[in-house]
């Protein structure tokens, strides 16, 4: 099985490569990268005028399987990933049951192998059943293939347990991903606390709910010397805390979602439940700080927090509807529209935060285009504007505030292990 990608503009952040070259793929691996490769290939893609990048990696996806297959399955979620240019996605363990046992990690791999079209790497729970009381069997979970640990959706409120989790993980050299939110401060809030929560009467979640939790986690990361990754950073002061922690040598990395750097809390005045996310959309000054964090590398990664929910659930009233929106299919478009076109990041810098950076944090051999690596490659048309249409979404769910938006950067081909899994 061979594939030749002709005349694409190859962008590889890890090697700073930005050149029009051909790529020859054989047996799932990149065999040669050179100008005008003259080898016979079973398949040829003419990528002239297109950008060829390492396959995108999402380190924060909710696939809902097992437990909520009405919202998403590994099959539908990986189709959405492929349509969004992602070749590797890491699924969060807040499933039913939670991924807290090696057998469940194996289940995810098995489902992904049978039904999935991109790579799925499971993130396992920190605590048993994500209850925040006892540690999950982290060593065995790693042996089964877990790539990171998180109780995503819930913060570990017990500081002692968090300390132990961070310390214990050093034996296994994996990162702990924290969803920073002090539940007492966020209470039953649904939107950012501020002027817009005041005028809408919707209950507020103060920025401090995130910052207080983050501060403790940074202190414990420093104390333990372990690697901490902060999920979906949303406030200006969080960015500052992370930046300062990095400066004094805390092993911390952080991610931001495309929706948090695109939309502000003003969106909630529509009362559309597709504006209900956790953490909530914040203010314009927070977006500015998130962008600065992306520029100076306080923020390492862009991750989607793809959170599918059925139409029925999102049709509920604002208090009752679940948090979260889908994001795999709109991520690259929003990154280009909000960061690259607005000259916040160069295309190379932006792609790094979607490829090599998450790969390094997770310690996986992915996210680069070089000879010998697995051929996970995404090809997109930078200048091509496309309309986000509800009926074209590959996800099982439709909960996106970006339906009807026009986005740049149309994905043309997604290639996993040398096989085209999405393409026109």
């Amino acid at each position, binding site marked *: 099985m061979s594939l030749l990608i002709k005349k694409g503009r190859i962008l590889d952040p890890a090697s700073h490569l930005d050149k029009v070259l051909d790529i020859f793929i054989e047996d799932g691996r990149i065999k040669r990268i050179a100008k005008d490769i003259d080898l016979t290939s079973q398949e040829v893609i003419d990528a002239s005028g297109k950008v060829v990048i390492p396959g995108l990696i999402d380190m924060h996806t909710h696939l809902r399987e097992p437990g909520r297959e009405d919202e998403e399955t590994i099959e539908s979620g990986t189709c959405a990933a492929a349509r969004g240019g992602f070749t590797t996605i890491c699924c969060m363990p807040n499933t039913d049951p939670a991924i807290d046992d090696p057998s469940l990690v194996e289940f995810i791999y098995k489902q992904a192998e049978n039904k999935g079209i991109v790579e799925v790497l499971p993130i396992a729970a920190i605590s048993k059943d994500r209850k925040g009381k006892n540690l999950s069997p982290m060593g065995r979970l790693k042996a089964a293939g877990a790539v990171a640990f998180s109780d995503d959706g819930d913060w570990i409120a017990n500081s002692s347990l968090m300390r132990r989790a961070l310390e214990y993980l050093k034996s296994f050299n994996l990162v702990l991903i924290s969803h920073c939110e002090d539940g007492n401060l966020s209470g039953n809030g649904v939107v950012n606390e501020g002027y817009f929560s*005041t*005028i*809408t*009467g919707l209950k*507020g979640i103060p920025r401090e709910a995130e910052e207080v939790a983050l501060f403790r986690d940074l202190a414990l990361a420093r104390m333990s010397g372990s690697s901490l990754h902060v999920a979906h950073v949303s406030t200006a002061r969080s960015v500052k805390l992370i930046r300062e922690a990095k400066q004094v040598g805390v092993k911390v990395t952080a991610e931001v979602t495309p929706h948090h750097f695109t939309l502000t809390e003003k969106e909630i005045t*529509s*009362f559309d439940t597709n504006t209900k996310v956790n953490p909530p959309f914040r203010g314009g000054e927070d977006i500015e700080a998130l962008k600065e964090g992306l520029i100076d590398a306080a923020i390492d990664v862009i991750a989607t927090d793809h959170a599918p929910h059925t139409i029925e659930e999102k049709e509920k*009233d604002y*208090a009752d509807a679940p948090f979260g929106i889908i994001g795999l299919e709109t991520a690259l478009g929003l990154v280009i529209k909000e960061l690259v076109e607005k000259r916040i990041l160069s295309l190379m810098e932006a792609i790094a935060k979607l490829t090599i950076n998450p790969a390094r944090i997770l310690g996986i051999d992915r996210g680069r285009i070089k000879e010998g690596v697995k051929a996970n490659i995404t090809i997109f048309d930078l200048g091509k504007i496309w309309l986000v249409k509800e009926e074209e979404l590959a996800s099982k769910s439709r909960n996106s505030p970006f339906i009807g938006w026009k986005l740049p950067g149309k994905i043309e081909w997604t290639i996993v292990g040398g096989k085209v899994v999405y393409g026109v």
Partner: protein
Amino acid sequence: MNFKRKDLLGIEDLSKEEILFILETTKSFREILERPIKKVPTLRGRTVVNLFFEVSTRTRMSFELAEKRLNADVLNFSATSSSLAKGETLLDTVKNILAMKVDCFVLRHPVPGTPHLLARELPVPIINAGDGAHEHPTQALLDIYTIQERKKRIEGLKVAIIGDITHSRVARSNIWGLSKLGAEVRVCGPPTLIPPLIEEMGVEIFYLPEDALREVDIVMMLRIQKERQDEGFLPSISEYIEFFSLTEDRLSLAREDVLVMHPGPVNRGVELPARIADGKRSVILDQVVNGVAVRMAVLYLLLAKR
């Protein structure tokens, strides 16, 4: 002017002209309430559904009376969200009722934005009768009508709204309405019950009634819920009474001709003593009768057309 709206969802969306037009229309309906036969045939053959997902006697009765005095057929549906059949959503329920050919929904719901959800999905008028802590537009309209009836103006009046501002839709709707008509609005309460950045709505914040009441023309007392004590907003209701209730001494700081208002039902002895509630400065019962007239006007403006 033509009142072109399909729904009445909040005062925030209304222009000054629209508010004045509703108040002007209310006058004609107020007169009907003084007739021997307090009923007009205007909405003959129309059916209005009162959909109440929160306990409310006064507002529901006021709407029902307004509907009946316009000759509409009235369907009452009182429930808590949890009493909907299992798996049934609010939208389901409402679409099912709509299939029975009704013409309008009056909705009271504990969650902000619920009337907006219905308004987006349904072709018939939706009247917001209170959505969580968001808005209660007919209450603000009746309050403003009552003030205008007594003071003959709104512009330049100083109005103090005192109590649990955070959880009050009445406060929000009145702040929008009174500010649009040129009144100077103050809010007052313990800081735990004043929502963040409310000053950006154009109000001044006070933390004690002694400061808020100076030289005011109108004082609006809000109902305080006993739950606020358990939720940690207040040490106790008795402490609240001591520092935040309306007393004769505090009221004497206001203008001589001050009007005392309350959206009801009054916790007598909590927000204000019976003597003030029943006293000559109180217009609480005027608010009640004007409520029917305002709701008739709103129903007329939304329903008396094709």
